[in-house]
């Protein structure tokens, strides 16, 4: 009885996306990269020393801090977003900053998400090194800071994976940035929240195109971070 014109029930859709469409995403792409980039830098500045310290220090309660860091790595980002939201809300303790619904709030949330990853993975990378190296450095009279930098450089491959893992998780995160950024057009809309919005509107082609751009960007950036590690490896040890 029902007239079936084509084999497939779903209407034929062209997934062609023109350049102009991508061009309109440019501000969104720029914001995505700067928010996640700044968050990654801050998380590294804090996370490398923390991870190195955890690998080297012998202090009571260290295992507890480790357990907390591993918990942080498994923490649902949207819960991080909720905590940052409550912190920055007008009725919250840091409400006077006026950071809620600005890119700054998004950076704060992404730092909290990335920090445990950078610290935890840096720690395991350094712990995997030959313990003799540490003793040798100490015997040669290296200061704690010198020891830390030498070990970080030595554990380069692991440290690079820490960076890639952390960057991957924050650039692809949606729940937290939606909550604390507000997905405001032209101000706090990033690629993941734009994808959610386009999907909600039934604009599946646009959403798919944005997803493809996000994926390609992440690929290029990961490749660049990897090259960064390799190039140093060629340098004299």
């Amino acid at each position, binding site marked *: 009885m*029902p*007239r*079936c014109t084509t084999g*497939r*029930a*779903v*209407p034929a859709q062209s997934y062609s996306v023109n350049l102009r469409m991508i061009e309109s995403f440019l501000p969104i792409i720029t914001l995505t990269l700067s928010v996640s980039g700044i968050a990654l830098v801050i998380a590294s500045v804090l996370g490398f020393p923390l991870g190195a310290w955890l690998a080297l220090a012998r202090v*009571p*309660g*260290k*295992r*507890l801090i480790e*357990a907390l860091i*591993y*918990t942080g790595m*498994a923490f*649902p980002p949207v819960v991080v977003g909720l905590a940052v939201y409550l912190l920055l*809300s*007008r009725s919250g303790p840091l409400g006077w900053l006026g950071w*809620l*619904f600005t890119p700054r709030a998004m950076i704060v949330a992404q730092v909290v998400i990335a920090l445990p990853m950078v610290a935890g993975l840096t720690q395991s990378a350094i712990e995997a090194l030959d313990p003799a190296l540490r003793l040798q450095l100490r015997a040669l009279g290296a200061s704690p800071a010198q020891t830390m930098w030498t070990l970080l450089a030595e554990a380069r491959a692991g440290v690079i994976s820490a960076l890639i893992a952390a960057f991957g998780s924050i650039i692809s995160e949606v729940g937290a940035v*939606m909550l604390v950024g*507000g*997905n*405001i*057009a*032209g*101000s706090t*809309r990033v690629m993941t*929240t*734009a994808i*959610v*919005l386009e*999907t*909600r*509107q*039934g604009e*599946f082609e646009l959403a798919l195109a944005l997803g493809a751009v996000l994926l390609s960007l992440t690929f290029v950036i990961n490749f660049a971070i990897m090259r960064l590690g390799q190039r140093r490896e060629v340098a004299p040890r």
Partner: protein
Amino acid sequence: MRTQTLLRLITPALALVMTACAAATPSAPTAAPEATAGQTARQPGVLILATTTSTDDSGLLDAILPGFEAAEGVDVQVIAVGTGQALALGAAGDADVVLVHARAQEDAFVAEGSGVNRRDVMYNDFIIVGPAADPAGVKDMARAQEALAQIASAGAPFASRGDKSGTHSKELGLWKAAALTPVSGENGYVELGQGMGETLIYANESGAYTLTDRATWLASQSNLPDLAVMVGGASIDANPDTGLYNPYGVIAVNPDKFPHVNADLAERFIAWITSAEVQAEIGGFGIDQYGQALFFASATTP
């Protein structure tokens, strides 16, 4: 030693949290793709209803759907999204029936052959809410479009849904009637691209005006201490601007276009939700909780 025992306590709890997260995350998005399964007919006992967030968030569907499920011995799966996506789900054959509120988009949906048998179901109304201090001085204005014009000329903040939802369509219509075309990021106007609940929270935080449906406002009012009704009055009877009425329609997805949809059940659903009995139930929903009805029955016999 002490930390060791602590770790032993923490680890299983941690594992539990992690598995719970792993289990919870993928389950949400599967709801829609599962329905895409395509060609083969769906399970006979399942009706997929694509609807707007307001019918679900207000608790209406939870209150009335069990009656249909029990009477028919079926399972109704609700996909609550914006009107735009609800109609897109229908237009792709991923739902059996849609319950939405954007008349122009609904008519286009039927005209393009994606839907059949559109029926009025109910209506509620839109209101303009804003900061209690009312910097633009629009409180108790009689017409929404004039209030918007005044908000714009005062340069006061206005939060737009910006998500092509029924509420967003209505808001754009009001700006058009006021002969204004606001741009996100200019003159206090921001497009959020989020749901009604999130937009109200944003307005409460940022001291912005916004357009909302009354049902969502009544349901979330207790969490919005800094907002007050500006245009629309305390109840739908007190709304001076009848242009703010918000009609909901139900449409079956066209079985001629998508042979796999559960057309019989969709027809029975439409007959059920427009029946006198269920219409009375809809009209009475929310009175005990909010002191006023959230939706008003409007189905007529075809």
